[in-house]
């Protein structure tokens, strides 16, 4: 199913146009309040946009004069709140979708058990929703959405409350079940986007600020948000004298015209960190102030202003860094990729 989406919700400041190809998984990224949930609500027919059109293949779902009700859209939605029906057991909750689509009790329960197993919640089948933990409830809700066998699946941060121990297994399940399905996945986790999504859309302030194949967006982020989640550094400005905003780099693709807007992108691991500016060799030297330190395994990511550098734990210790410490980020121009925007 091919989703064409176009909607304006004025009072939430949302104005989004996007397409999802048949069988494609689209990840929607963006900061809190960007309009991600609103987008899903419009697609699911829970919210009538002020203007807009939602089309699934040739079927108009939302259009001027047309509004297909939610239950007829064959769109399943899993929102941030699991909303398990409190009067049904976990098993009956998951069997709800199949039963609603006409399956017999026995078949529906079999399907429900299958999906509960897939999300690692088989042992909860006979509990009431009030008797499971927050993460367990979210897993059950995921099973319930999957069991409904929709043609378009809308997932709103499905894994935010799940523990890391089940995440890989669940991601695998999702990969398998999302393959060949048309899916819109709202997520804060760049790993989900990388592993599950074919394409990525980044929303900011209710508008699409970036869109493209996952790898391309994360490797060539143009928006600060995308750069942030991709773990890449991004400096935007205009291209002048071989530099963007004072950062020298190598243009990728056609060289931007002088004065044209461009972004410079470089990996945190390409950044060297000094307490004082190093002399001599031809580097970009960016004086910054440390704002945050994030251990990452045997590395530490040093965030400073809007940039990041990855150094070893030993180096970090030797540099005696703490938030507020002034440092110099140095990066070789050959490590900096420049894109026209």
């Amino acid at each position: 199913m091919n989703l064409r989406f176009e909607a304006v919700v004025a009072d939430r400041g949302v104005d989004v146009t996007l397409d999802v190809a048949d069988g494609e998984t689209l990840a929607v990224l963006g900061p809190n309040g960007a309009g991600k949930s609103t987008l899903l609500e419009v697609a699911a027919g829970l919210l009538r946009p002020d203007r807009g059109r939602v089309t699934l293949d040739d079927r108009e779902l939302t259009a001027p004069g047309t509004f297909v009700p939610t239950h007829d859209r064959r769109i399943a939605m899993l929102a941030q709140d699991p909303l398990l029906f409190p009067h049904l057991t976990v098993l009956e909750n998951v069997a709800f979708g199949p039963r609603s689509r006409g399956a017999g009790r026995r078949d529906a329960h079999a399907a429900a058990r299958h999906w509960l197993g897939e999300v690692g919640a088989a042992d909860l089948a006979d509990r009431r929703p009030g008797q499971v933990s927050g993460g367990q409830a979210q897993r059950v809700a995921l099973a319930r959405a999957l069991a409904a066998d929709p043609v378009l699946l809308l997932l709103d941060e499905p894994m935010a409350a799940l523990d890391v121990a089940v995440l890989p297994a669940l991601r695998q399940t999702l990969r398998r079940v999302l393959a060949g399905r048309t899916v819109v996945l709202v997520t804060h986790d760049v790993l989900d986007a990388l592993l599950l999504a074919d394409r990525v859309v980044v929303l900011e302030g209710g508008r699409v600020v970036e869109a493209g194949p996952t790898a391309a967006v994360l490797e060539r982020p143009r928006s600060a948000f995308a750069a942030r989640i991709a773990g890449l550094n991004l400096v935007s400005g205009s291209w002048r004298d071989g530099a963007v905003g004072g950062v020298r780099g190598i243009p990728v693709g056609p060289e931007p015209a002088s004065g044209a807007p461009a972004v410079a992108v470089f990996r945190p691991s390409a950044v060297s960190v000094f307490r004082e500016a190093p002399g001599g060799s031809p580097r970009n030297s960016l004086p910054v102030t440390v704002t945050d330190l994030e251990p990452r395994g045997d590395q530490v990511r040093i965030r400073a202003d809007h940039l990041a550098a990855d150094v070893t734990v030993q180096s970090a210790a030797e540099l005696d860094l703490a938030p507020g410490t002034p440092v110099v980020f140095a990066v070789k121009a050959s490590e900096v990729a420049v894109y026209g925007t």
Partner: protein
Amino acid sequence: MIPRWLYAPAAVGAAFVLLPLVAIAARVEWTDLFDLVTSQASKDALWLSLRTSAIATLLCLLFGTPMAVVLARTSFPGQGVVRSLVLLPLVLPPVVGGIALLYTFGRRGLLGHELDVLGLQVAFSTTAVVLAQTFVAMPFLVVSIEGALRTAGQRYEVAAASLGARPTTVFRRVTLPLVLPGLVSGAVLAFARSLGEFGATITFAGSLQGVTRTLPLEIYQLRETDVDAAVALSLVLVVVAVLVIGLARQGRSAA
């Protein structure tokens, strides 16, 4: 967790409601009660009351629940007016309600001719008792269920719809179970109100033993000749009501 001082007004309130019941119970000649209760007239009245109240409650559920759903879940112009009007039997003195029913279903009423053609004589029959009870009890049910629907919100219904459940399925498998507590208390209220109904019944249905003389009418009649007996018989009503309310609560907490 609740403020301690709340117990004081709660106790005063409870005492205010319970003391009169104690006062009644204290006056009853318990020895006479047995004869009274087992008299044919009392048994007829009790049985008639139970039957008609049960049917009236059923009618309230059948027609009142949809009304509550329409009021709580849709909006249409004039909805506020309709809601107020539907609640009116609450405020109408029951006798006036009885007159209104006569004006509607009586021989000379609005629908009298139509009913006559169909060979239906509603007024002064057991049917009239049921109609009178339904009329006065309906608002209780509607108010209870509408309140429950509003408090429950639509989030679960939305979730069900997104799983592909059509409105009827959502209604049956999500909405109704979710508001079950409200439904039960609405039904209990409606049943209790039906059981105690007097004014509309006597006006619209009359008071004929075994046909239209329900327990409250029997009590009223007894009061003409023997106030103490009337009071004693009303204790029977009280016991029946307590049993019904108790059973409903039990059933509800078991569900």
